[in-house]
């Protein structure tokens, strides 16, 4: 993650993703057009629509023209929409690095949300800090427990994670449905909702964005600075070799699925706070978006590759594309097609990059070999000339 010396995209693993986001942003800023937003002012202690007087003396509601993409509200909204997927994508990336997959992440998100919602609803809108603490603990705890169960079953039964998490996807969502009978659970402590939805600088909800960044930083430290993180990469690189080198593969695998569940629990907590309700239908199909974000972010499905920052940037790219279609007035039915194309393109680019890196490495090895040979021949010929 660190950038040694001068900033260089070629040396920075996520440079390509950042470049892609900048290009997308430029396209949307230039071709997205503009929009008129109403102006507000505080009058008599209340937020009211500002009034301006025209040249003809008419009083009309004031508005301001802003670029459709390049404005604080839209950018923060994209960040907020991204945050739920990005947080789960970071957990998913850690799983994918080990060569695994977690198809149950959307269902874990739903079950965590439903359990948290039931607790928060129990205390109602007047619930205090204690109620919020218990609600958040339950939401995050259920997610973590679900993840732990996934990991434990994968290790204990030695079954491919695809099968186990496919099964738990149905089980967790089924439990959520049974708990709620398919109904939405709302009416949470106001203090919780106010905190998550709190608007800074005149209408910007920054809490989901901040949580996403914190999760990314912690995920980055876990993967790149801690010994356990290196073990995660080692298992993805070669599981048998890791086992023989003394890594307790089973424990690491249980940990990574637990972290994936934890990330789903955190995302569910934010969702409860922001949207104000939980239901068994929450997060349906999100597993595909989360896996897509991880893959676009550079995680390799065969394991051994991926970063927390990459997962976040992958989620940002998908969200910018999704919002970009709205900004460019392209019918949203195309969004799934575009996202599918982007995922395939990302994997192909990744493969191309891997092949180029392999060639560069071979060329470099060849050059070194040649130099070594030349240097070993040079003294011999020099000795002959002297003779």
């Amino acid at each position, binding site marked *: 993650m660190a950038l040694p010396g001068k900033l260089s995209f070629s040396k920075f693993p996520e440079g390509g993703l950042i470049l892609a986001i900048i290009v997308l942003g430029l396209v949307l800023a230039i071709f997205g057009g*503009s929009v008129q*937003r109403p102006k507000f002012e505080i009058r008599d202690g209340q937020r009211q629509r500002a009034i301006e007087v025209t040249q003809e003396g008419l009083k009309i509601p004031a508005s301001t023209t802003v670029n459709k993409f390049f404005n604080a509200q839209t950018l923060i909204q994209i960040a907020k929409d991204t945050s739920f997927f990005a947080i789960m994508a970071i957990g998913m990336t850690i799983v994918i690095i080990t060569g695994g997959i977690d198809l149950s992440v959307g269902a874990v998100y739903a079950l965590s949300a439903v359990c948290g919602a039931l607790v928060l609803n129990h205390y109602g809108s007047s619930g205090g800090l204690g109620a919020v603490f218990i609600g958040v603990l339950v939401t995050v705890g259920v997610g973590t427990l679900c993840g732990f169960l996934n990991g434990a079953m994968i290790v204990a039964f030695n079954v491919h994670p695809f099968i186990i998490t496919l099964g738990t996807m149905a089980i967790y969502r089924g439990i959520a449905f049974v708990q709620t009978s398919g*109904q939405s659970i709302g009416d949470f402590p106001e203090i919780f909702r106010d905190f998550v939805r709190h608007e800074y600088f005149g209408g910007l909800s920054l809490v989901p964005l901040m949580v996403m960044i914190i999760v990314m930083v912690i995920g980055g430290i876990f993967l790149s600075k801690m010994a356990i993180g290196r073990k995660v990469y080692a298992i993805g690189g070669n599981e048998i070799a890791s086992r023989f080198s003394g890594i307790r593969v089973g424990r690491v695998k249980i940990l990574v699925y637990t972290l994936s569940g934890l990330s789903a629990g955190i995302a569910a907590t934010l969702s409860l706070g922001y949207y104000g309700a939980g239901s068994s239908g929450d997060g349906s199909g999100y597993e595909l978006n989360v896996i897509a974000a991880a893959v676009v972010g550079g995680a390799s499905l065969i394991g051994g590759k991926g970063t927390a920052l990459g997962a976040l940037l992958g989620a940002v790219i998908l969200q910018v594309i999704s919002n970009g279609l709205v900004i460019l007035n392209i019918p949203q039915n195309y969004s799934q097609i575009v996202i599918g194309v982007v995922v395939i393109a990302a994997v192909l680019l990744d493969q191309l990059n891997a092949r180029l890196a392999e060639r560069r490495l071979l060329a470099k090895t060849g050059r070194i070999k040649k130099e070594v040979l030349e240097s070993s021949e040079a003294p011999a010929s020099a000795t002959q000339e002297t003779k």
Partner: protein
Amino acid sequence: MIRRFAVTGFLSLVAAAGFAADKTLVFGVVAKSNNNPVFQAAKTGAEDEAKKLNTEKKANIQIDWRTPNEEDPQKQADAIEQLVNNGAAGIAVSCSDANKLTDAINKAVDNGIPVVCFDSDAPKSKRLANFGTDDVDCGHKTMSELAKVMNNKGVVAILAGNQNAPNLQKRVQGVKEEAKKYPDIKILDAYYHKETPQDAAAKVEQVMQAHPEITGWAMIGGWPLFTDNALKFAPGTVKVVAVDALPAQLGYLRDGHVQVLLAQQVYEWGTTSVDLLYNKVVENKSPPSSFVKGELIPITKANVEEFAKNWEKWLPKK
């Protein structure tokens, strides 16, 4: 130097784009899902009404259809926020989850954008109005139509969907209230089930086997009729009245399994929503009541072919 030119050029383009605002009135429509034909009818209705107003009143309305492919209230809330950020003049929404959409609706209204609900309301929100079915009335009408085809006598079962859905509870209440007017009609019970065609069809079969004395079904939703061969009894032996008249349901009318379908005004969900928004945004007129009642249209064997032609117009051409 090049970098400076690039930055200046970019800022100039952004500024130029910023001053190119047009005067189009964009009405965002956020239905529950693209997979349900009733919302495709609503989309056609909204677009037709926009064209009509553009022609008749020289308005410049554009419909921005922002409906998730599958039901997802979180995506609906995000879509409303996107529409607000993109300068929509008004928004119509059918709420998959009123709890989750209330804040997004309120935020839009606080930003000066009127919101109307159709089909499914968010009653605690600041929405301008709700256009939809009166559920108690729907129950009354279902039972009165069933009583007619049963010659005011027999044993009736109610197919009731999800027992926790407040709108369905009201429909059941309406059926039971109306049944009291017919002394020779006995209500056996209300039977609840998961709202999928398969579960609903299985429930009908199960109840029919347990209670062969049933002579009429009041289906307050058309769930089992969304699949083929859902009703195992011979046509006409048991009378059926069901809510909704989707293309899949019409076959049951034609073959005599179902006597009456009560069609909700799904096309009008679009037309009326656009009208309500236009009146508020352009003419600053609010409806007299925040509930705008949609009628239920009885479809029988006599008018089924005529009604079926509507779906040809409402659904997108294949």
